[in-house]
């Protein structure tokens, strides 16, 4: 894998972590969890 591809994969991993965090935060406030 090239440096460029490593950079892209690293950014995607960070983005996935951001979305998991966001989803968990919002889901814990949803009507279904009450």
């Amino acid at each position, binding site marked *: *894998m090239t440096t*460029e*591809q490593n*950079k*892209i*994969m690293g*950014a*995607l*991993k*960070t*983005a*996935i972590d*951001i*979305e*998991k*965090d*966001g*989803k*968990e*935060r*919002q*889901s*814990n*406030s*949803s*009507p*279904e*969890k*009450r």
Partner: protein
Amino acid sequence: MAKNDNLTAVQKSDNEAGRKLLHSLALEEDTHLKKLEEIYHSIQNKMGWPAVAFEPDKGKSLRELFVGACKVTGVSVKGSSTEVDAINTAIGKEKESYDFYEQQSKDATYETERAFYEAVAAEEREHEIILVHYYEYLTDPVDWFTRVERHSLDAG
């Protein structure tokens, strides 16, 4: 923040507008997550950025749902200080996400990569704006309704 602590107040709230809004935001974050995982696995297998179908509605349905729920609840909404603080924190998190995706779009190698990150950044911006509206609605509902009646929520 500790991931879930501050939003406990929102979770326990009887505020339907807030719970509906946050549930919808969670669904959109889930769509982002699925697309990102799809791209990640595609790059792992094919070593290139795939074409991804991702066409957000620019917050239209989110705004309609939110305004509708606020109209039902009206000006008698009650938000605890903890709930208001939690929304404020969530606004900060959405801004951080927007900044990250905006930077990724600028650093993108592929055109499809740039377009994808731009679309996600735009949606995160919509989340931030709608949460600011929710914050304003909770803290001063009369003023918020006055402003919404004067200007469309589309004006941001």
